[in-house]
C-alpha cells in the first residue's frame, strides 16, 4: 500500500479482555516500531523490530504486552487482560532503514478499556 495501515482504527474492550492490534508497514521497510500515545503526550516507545527480529522490547510496560512480526512484514501487538490504564492510541511506524531513521506513522488504533 501507499502508507502504513493499522486495524482496527478504534477498539473498545472490557477490562480483562485480550486485544490484538495489527500493523501493515510500507512494503520493503525493514524497521517497525510500536508506540503508545496518551492524550496530550508524545509517543512512548514500546518495541522495535528489524525484519522479523524483535531487537528492543524495553518499552513494553508489562508482560501483558506482546508483539510479533513473524514474517518481517505485518506486525501484531497483543495486550492480554486489558486494564483501564492501557487506554491510549497505539501507533505503528515503519522505516526503510535498519535502526529506523525517517519513520512513517500509521493512523493509530485508539483503544478504550472500560
Amino acid at each position, binding site marked *: 500500500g501507499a502508507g502504513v495501515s493499522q486495524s482496527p482504527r478504534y477498539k473498545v474492550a472490557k477490562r480483562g479482555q485480550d486485544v490484538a492490534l495489527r500493523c501493515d508497514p510500507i512494503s520493503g521497510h525493514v524497521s517497525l*516500531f510500536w*508506540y503508545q500515545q496518551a492524550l*496530550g*503526550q*508524545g*509517543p*512512548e*516507545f514500546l518495541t*522495535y523490530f*528489524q525484519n522479523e527480529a524483535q*531487537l*528492543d522490547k*524495553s*518499552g513494553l510496560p508489562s508482560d501483558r504486552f506482546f508483539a510479533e512480526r513473524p514474517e518481517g512484514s505485518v506486525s501484531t501487538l497483543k495486550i492480554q487482560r486489558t486494564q483501564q490504564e492501557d487506554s491510549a492510541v497505539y*501507533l505503528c*511506524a515503519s522505516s526503510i532503514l535498519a*535502526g*529506523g*531513521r*525517517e*519513520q*512513517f*506513522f*500509521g*493512523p*493509530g488504533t485508539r483503544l478504550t478499556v472500560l
Partner: protein
Amino acid sequence: GQQVMQIPQYQHVQEGEDFTTYCNSSTTLSNIQWYKQRPGGHPVFLIQLVKSGEVKKQKRLTFQFGEAKKNSSLHITATQTTDVGTYFCAGSSNNDMRFGAGTRLTVKP
C-alpha cells in the same frame, strides 16, 4: 535511560509572530528528528539532523542541532494558521527512538 525533554508545552501566537520549541536530551544523540502532528492526526516526519552544530532550513522552518548533540531547536518564522499542531522532537541513540512530550502550537488569525 535516555530522556528527551521539550519546552514549552504550549505556545499561543498571533499569526505572523515567530515560534520556537526546544528539545534537550539527557544523553548524547546519534541523530534527532522532528515531527508534526495535526489535531486528530498522526506524526509526520519533518527533518533529521545528524551532524554536530547542523542547521537545516525548510522554507519558514529552521532546525538546529547543538554542538554537543544533546539539544535541538525548531524555529518558525512568521507563523501561519497552517502551522497549527504539535511539534515533537525524537532523539535516537542505538536503535531506539525517544520522543519529547511535544509543543502544542496554536495560531490566532
